């Protein structure tokens, strides 16, 4: 059990600090109760030019580092962010660090779960479609006859278009689509639609009898 604690980027914490001895302490807490849980740890300054081991009571010290006699100012720094301006927050000196949490190296195994399965968007769509199929006949039954007629026509158009697309006759499918744009005006009742509306009728017939 070694160093799996988020003692974040201490190495870069003090790159710009200048003062005398550097002192600090690791605050033992429930996440990291003692040195056994932490393992062999050292606190590193400036790419290991100075480093101090964490002792049993949590303290670390590195002497003879700095020449200045004023206390160092410690600021946090996150790798990848610009160094200047430095972070406005200053950390207390001597530095006190505490573990925020334990690194979790593992991912939980996925298990079979019915609810989770139905949370899947695909599954929800399927369910929705199923419900629609079941409800459609009742809906159709309650529909206004005129609206119904219109709906049937549109449906027939779409079916036609789909079938022509499937058969690879793109041109006719496309022209149909364009034609359908003009539809509303000439839609009252065209003789040309006889066949297709007939099909639709049959289908609606089924619905009615149920």
């Amino acid at each position, binding site marked *: 059990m070694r160093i799996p604690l988020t003692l974040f980027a201490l190495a*870069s914490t003090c790159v710009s600090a200048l003062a005398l001895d550097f002192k600090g302490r690791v605050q033992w807490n429930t996440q990291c109760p003692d040195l056994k849980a932490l393992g062999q740890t050292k606190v590193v300054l400036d790419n290991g030019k100075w480093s101090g081991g964490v002792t049993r009571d949590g303290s670390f010290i590195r002497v003879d580092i700095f020449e200045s006699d004023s206390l160092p100012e410690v600021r946090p720094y996150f790798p990848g962010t610009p160094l200047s301006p430095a972070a406005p927050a200053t950390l207390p000196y001597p530095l006190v660090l505490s573990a925020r949490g334990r690194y979790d190296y593992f991912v939980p195994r996925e298990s079979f779960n019915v609810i989770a399965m139905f949370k899947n968007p695909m599954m929800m769509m399927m369910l929705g479609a199923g419900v629609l199929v079941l409800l459609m006949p009742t809906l159709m039954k309650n529909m206004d006859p005129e609206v119904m007629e219109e709906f049937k026509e549109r449906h027939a158009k779409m079916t036609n278009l789909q079938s022509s697309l499937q058969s690879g006759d793109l041109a006719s499918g496309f022209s149909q689509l364009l034609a359908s744009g003009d539809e509303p005006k000439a839609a009252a009742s065209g003789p040309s639609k006889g066949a297709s509306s007939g099909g639709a009728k049959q289908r609606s017939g089924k619905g009615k009898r149920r």
Partner: protein
Amino acid sequence: MRLFSLLLGAACAYALHASEAGVLDWHKPQLGVPLIQSHATAPTFHRREYDTGATRSTILTVTQSNVLASVNPANGSIDWRYVFDDDDRIIAYHKDNDVVAALSGIGGANLRLFDAIEGDLLLETRLHSPEAGRLFEPETLGTAISFGSEEQAGNLFVLTDGHVLRSIDRHTGEVKWGWSAPDQTSLVVYSKILVTPSAIYLLGLANSFASYTLHISTLSPTTGEVIASGNVPSSVTTGFTDVVVVRDHRTSEVEPHIVWLEDKVIKYYPLTPSLKAKPAVIKGATYRSLQDVGVSAFGQFVAVQEDGSGRVIRLSSEGLKVIWDFADSATSPQRSDAIYSGGLDVDGHPYIARVFWSHAFRQASAHIFASHLAEGKGLVTGFTFPFKTAEHGIISHVAVDAANPEPYRVLSRLFLTTSTGAIQLWQHDQHQWTREEGLADIRVAELVELPERKIASHAGVEQEFFGARLRRQLSDAQDFPQYAVNFVRRFVTGSYASASASVAPSTNTTEPLSRDTFGFRKVIVAATSHGKLYGIDSANGEVLWSRVFGLGWAAQVGGQIIPAKLFVTRTVNDGEVPQVVLVTQRKANNGLVDTVLFHVDALTGDDATGKSPANDVLQGKDVVSGPLVEAFLLKTASARVVVLLDEFLQVHLFPETDETLRIFEKAVPALRIPLKTGPPGQRQLTGHQIPQKVEFTGRYIAYPTWTLPFPPTEDIRTVFARPTDPVASLGKVLGNRTTLYKYLNPNLIGVVTGPSASVPASKSATCAVYLVDGAKGTVIYHAVLPSAEGACDVKATLVENWLVYHYYDSEVGPGQAKGYRVVSVELYEGRGIDDKTLSSDLTSLSNETTSVSIHEQSYVFARGITTLAATSTSYGITMKDVIVAHEHGQIQSVPRRFLDPRRPKQKPTTEEMEEWLVQYDPVIPDDPKRVLSHNYQVAKTRRVVTSPALLESTSLVFAYGLDLFSTRVAPSNTFDVLSENFNKVQLVFTIGGLALAIFVVKPMVARKRLRERWYD
């Protein structure tokens, strides 16, 4: 295309499940080979006594891997270890009842205190900066630690730098007083401390003509004031090796003595605070050496006489007296010279062991002398123990621990360190355990594929009678019912081989080695610098076989075998037992260097040449009488030949047969060999070719064709080449359906340069990375990197057309911070997209080889690393991740997607999204889920070896350094096996549900149809 999309789909995180930890991977923590040259670092038994009267014993040692460790004598497990930094060498350790103190760094710069049982660091303090320390030879000289007793019990006395003594509080680390020799420039170097309640004696050597003179200073323990100081009239020639300070700490009546050897005579000088005594001589015999065996605080030491026989001398109120002569201990061809070692029992009585190897009986013997037994006349208990010299070399150090359960009976525990780096514990003549610590110093390692398990063994018999044939076939068929049952069961329950199961063999070890379903199990062949070759099971890390190298003619003078390269010369695909060839340099003690080859069967460790029997040392073949310059494996369709170049650039082949010569002749025109040439500090890269004609010596001699000098400030650090793994796709299809063709020049090599080691480090020094066309010396890619305080720590790896390097950037630019950087470079053919030059097949004479476009990107990396390697799979289809070993002991995989140099700076367009490019972020995320070593602490990894498994998706990873670690990774997920998460129950459930639905609905539909017919 489908596979392509599959791979992309699987590109999301691959991580370990908690249940797989310790199943897919294994970790062997090690401590390294004990450092036995000095008493200050050699292994000793330590007994911790608690206030309750209970005791607990451990074995403490410092090792060559710079580790202070405590081993449990009961089972050989590591109780604790503290890994020191490489630039902070441990010089000495000293133990008291509950603590262990260690001095490290030049001149003893750092002092650390540890709990003796728990290993917790109690105190760490710097005594001086390492640069200010004085370097001594040997490095243990000039430093000593001693714990105070009685009223000084809370203090620690530390001598550093040969002239500075400090009294340090054990609990706070506060320096109570310090004393420095007034004349530091004088030639006195203090090396020993003796603390008594009345005075501290500092013993040193003063330089005088042709020899040294003993010098003593006495100080007050409370204030550090000098009481007296002066030379003892003496003449010591061998430094402190023949000087012993004896005292009996149990009684204060006998004053301590300093004993030394002068002109083969033992002289002594009683130590009093005022230094008023006169030196005296023990008359009677002439001696060869004096040995402090670790019980000098109990008044005993060993003196070896001129004829090699050993005797024990004791200090008592009657002065120094010989109390025991070891019988038959004179030097003789019948046995090896004895090793003497002292130990204590629970009651604190001293024991002295003499251990030697008997050539006549081929067994090791131990004689344990106990001075207090037999009414104070002394008692020796002797026994022999079956030490396996063919397996562990020779005994090089012994530590002893004794017990005296009843009068006239002595039980002893011997802790042996052997020349092959093994450590062993023997309880009397019973072997308790062995740890192969030589594995902490692996020089070369290779993973070798295993053959499939043979189900039916039909050994191609030409003529076979009917009866015999029937019998054979029946015996072959006896497993059939089991097979059939298995087949059915597998079909029904779906218990297929799982890609995340352990491949370790069951307890039945009699079966020959065979691979598992997916080829996850291999043999790791590893050679150490302690003269041993190991075969390790990659499934669980067990040592399958091991061989000790024979020294050949150098056995007469002694020597060392240093492994240089390891080649797999025959694989399973060749239909026979896989074989490896180890190329080594043998450095004999008389200064001669030879190149020796060891040709070994990878499954059993048997000598493939058939010369050395299995239970003896492995004898090599001297191929070159001289050092080796380069060795490489020439792979052709028909054979694999090891090509060696000696210092005169003569070509040697192994095996050297007519056929291999013919193969080599055919390959000669295409061979381009870049070599490091020139003296250290000004090394350059020189390309070599081999002429078609054999020289009059009967050998080919390579000649230089080009030279690539580097700037005078740069010296070659490492040269690395691309692995010979297959490349699945020659190009990269972009989102807009254009293609970038990979630059796959087979001669491409990488070079890392840095300031020469001979030049003092300066801050202006720079490091550099080059990619060079090894056929003609053209620099393809060059980057200058800043050095960290004059040191270069650039780690790089090259795979396919992809170079990744890692360094520390200490330059603080505007708004920039110091930190680790990783740079990813990709090389593509020609001037850009759709420009194809067929670089992989181009002749090296073509100008096109230099036409290359480079994409590069630098990222901030969170941590320092010790090494990196790319994963490797059998066909190269799977994405390549980079495996890095962190300085703090973790092995992590970095996904290629994060390192892609073509990551867009803005939000990715649809075309870029189609390539799965993610927006550039300066920091490579440090994801704990990608830590392959999870909770293990894999210390000081030096190299990561990757090797393909049979499954295309999976790559085996083996990391060595101080510890050994192995796991397997699937960078694109295990797309070629059914997922572990695949739920057969769910599938059956769904299908069953559908069947049920059909069953229910079918009559309903039929009824409805019928009604429709009637009423429509």
